[in-house]
């Protein structure tokens, strides 16, 4: 009996949905996809930005790419940024948000405090951290190390320590971002659930495990996926933290996007940069699809 009516409701809903999407789809097609396909096309050419010819050279750029040791180095550096940066910032962001959420008062002050690094200009922050990392007696970190009887560290001047040293301020700034979104998620959970759980005698841990985390799932999915993309695209921090933006010493901190940027705008090798962009795109797409699938099936 209800079928015809619900059919028409579904029908109008669908028409509304398409109406809502008309302008955005047009926008994405012209402003986003067209340039993206343009980049895909460029990866098959030898274009160098300033020249008029774009010669089709097939897969030569890709072949060169796979033989380029710097490409592999930047790829593994990028991996390090993601594998260390994301879990640490995600976990710190959650712990802070969880605790700030449970404060009796002063939430706003704490949020502002932890959010300040995120809203500060990266260029200025990079300079400050570079001073912090200087050798003693200028560098504060090394001064502290010496005063507690530990040996000095090279930090940005070391091939092994430079990458974590750049990651630290990145996480430092990123925590504020994670914190805000986690808080928005936590605030979306109705107090009623907790009140009901308390009546049932559930302790804090139970509440966290059986109420907070499950209900935060859309937030967590969002943060993991966007976080992965953000760390895979890490760029500005390295450009400003490593000297003259070279991603050194000896390419030990250079991420893929910095290499893309250098190839495109310093060497003017647009074709090569475009090929790397395609690879980066495919990597991110693959990871995102897997993440979406895994996190959906966990239900």
């Amino acid at each position, binding site marked *: 009996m209800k079928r015809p009516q619900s059919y028409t*409701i579904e029908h109008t809903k669908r028409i509304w949905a398409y109406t809502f*999407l008309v302008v955005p789809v047009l926008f994405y097609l012209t402003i986003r996809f067209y340039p993206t396909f343009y980049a895909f096309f460029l990866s098959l050419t030898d274009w160098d930005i300033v020249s008029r010819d774009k010669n089709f050279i097939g897969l030569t750029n890709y072949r060169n790419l796979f033989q380029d040791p710097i490409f592999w180095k930047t790829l593994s550096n990028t991996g390090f940024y993601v594998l260390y940066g994301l879990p640490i910032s995600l976990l710190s962001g959650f712990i802070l948000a969880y605790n700030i959420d449970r404060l009796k008062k002063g939430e706003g002050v704490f949020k502002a405090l932890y959010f300040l690094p995120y809203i500060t200009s990266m260029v200025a922050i990079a300079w400050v951290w570079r001073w912090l990392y200087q050798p003693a007696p200028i560098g504060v970190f090394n001064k502290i190390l010496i005063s507690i009887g530990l040996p000095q560290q090279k930090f940005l001047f070391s091939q092994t320590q430079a990458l974590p040293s750049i990651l630290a301020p990145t996480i430092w700034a990123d925590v504020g971002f994670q914190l805000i979104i986690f808080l928005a998620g936590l605030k979306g959970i109705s107090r009623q659930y907790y009140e009901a759980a308390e009546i049932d005698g559930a302790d804090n841990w139970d509440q966290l495990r059986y109420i907070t985390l499950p209900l935060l799932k859309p937030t967590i999915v969002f943060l993991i996926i966007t976080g992965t993309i953000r760390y895979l695209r890490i760029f500005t921090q390295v450009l400003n933290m490593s000297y003259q933006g070279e991603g050194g010493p000896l390419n030990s901190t250079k991420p893929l996007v910095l290499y*893309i940027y250098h190839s495109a705008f310093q060497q003017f090798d647009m074709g090569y940069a475009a090929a790397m962009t395609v690879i980066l795109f495919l990597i991110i797409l693959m990871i995102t699809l897997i993440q979406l699938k895994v996190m959906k099936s966990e239900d």
Partner: protein
Amino acid sequence: MKTNYKPIDVLRPVILIILGLLMLFPFAWMIATSFKQGRDVFSLSIIPENPTFANYLNIFSNSNFPFWFLNSLIVGLAVTASVLFFDSLVGFTLSKYSFRGKKIIFILILSTMMIPTEMLVIPWYIMSNELHWVDTYWGVMFPGLMSGFGTFLMRQFFQTVPEDLLDAGRIDGLNEFYLFSRIAIPLVKPALSALAIFSFIGNWNAFMWPLIVSNKVTMYTLPVGLSFFNGEFQSQWEMVMTGASIATIPVFFIFILFQRQIIQGIALTGVKG
């Protein structure tokens, strides 16, 4: 109630304050440097020995500074308004309706986050040039009017909005846009506020594209204008710090404005999720 006074309630703010002050240190250093001049810039004290406003006066005396500041403000606000509207509309559509092509549209919009902006700049510039968008606000703004990030964020948060609430509205004969703007939106205010903050920050700090698309110095945004202090193998650090300190103020203001929404949370009453 007894449960109100556990030791954790005292310990928690204390630990949060200590951690917060540590977080604040580099920021405080930046502010301190903006009040230093000459050799003091390189002294390590966090409190300036001879505090001076000279750096600020220097920036304010630049005749183009008001333009840069205003340009950034206009671009930041307009783009944020657009992002809030369109991203939540698309996020709502992708979360609350089922229709053909929904999944692929979602993935495609997500995929716009996977290309570094640096690679898109050249086609955008060619486009802007042909359409005479160079040196206009529209030229600076158009690439950011909608974002994959915001769409994804809003879609996730709309998923927590109970379906029955919307159905109840439909039975009352409300149209879909009304349901979206009057019923769904108020329920995701915290997320919307977070998006407003991020969108404003992102556009306020945007550098690469505003640089490429502006030729006139009066059309520069603040970050482009402030990069004039980076010279040949050398920067005027006290000016960089001063510029960065000034640039933080509007962002902080926007943050304060919207963050209240996040704290208030949602008073969901009588609905099961």
